């Protein structure tokens, strides 16, 4: 299991390679990237901040939950970026390997969906005319 939080560019190929396994017939990866707009408003860049110790703990817990739900999971890798990211940069990579493809899609989606709900990482969108912490206000 590879769980990482980094302020350096994520090596996508290395993260995917980390889940290679002889028992795997499927490797599935989700790559989250920085989009150039938010509800129609042009975004200049994003700033990610993390509560490192808790973020790593919760990322590991999500991976463990996935392992319990899909015992056939061979390997799991979750790498999240923090700091300032420009448009197109990779913010997160989730990779899993399983014997067959169906479980690889399901497990990968479960991990990224749950990470977005529970892991203490915050992003601030920077626009031409200001900055907003995403989801902070109703």
């Amino acid at each position, binding site marked *: 299991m590879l769980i990482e939080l980094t302020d350096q560019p994520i090596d996508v190929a290395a993260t995917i390679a980390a889940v290679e396994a002889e028992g795997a017939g499927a490797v599935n990866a989700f790559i989250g990237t920085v989009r150039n707009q938010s509800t129609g408003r042009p975004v200049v860049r994003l700033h990610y901040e993390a509560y490192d110790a808790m973020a790593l703990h919760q990322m590991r817990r999500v991976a463990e939950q996935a392992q319990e739900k899909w015992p056939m999971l061979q390997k799991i890798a979750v790498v999240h970026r923090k700091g300032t990211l420009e448009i197109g940069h990779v913010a997160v990579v989730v990779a899993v390997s399983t014997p067959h493809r169906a479980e690889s899609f399901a497990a990968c989606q479960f991990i990224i969906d749950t990470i977005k709900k529970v892991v203490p990482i*915050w992003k601030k969108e920077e626009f031409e005319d200001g900055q907003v912490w995403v989801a902070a206000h109703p």
Partner: protein
Amino acid sequence: MKLKLSLFGITKEIVGSPELELTAPDPQSVAGLMEQLRTQYPRLRELTSCAVAVNSEYAADDYQLQERDEIALIPPVSGG
């Protein structure tokens, strides 16, 4: 008792510091701490939500805080 809090994202901006030390009644629950903070920093009331983490776990409203706890405010997360 004295409690030490870590602040992130919007809560760090509202409080104006990444850390906050405060004196709380003993015992003090998570819900009580939040009410104490909302009185001191009314802009916390404007947030969609604000959870409290104790020792890297989300804490229930009725959890009784201890001086040695590592406490953090967790405004709505937005990773990914």
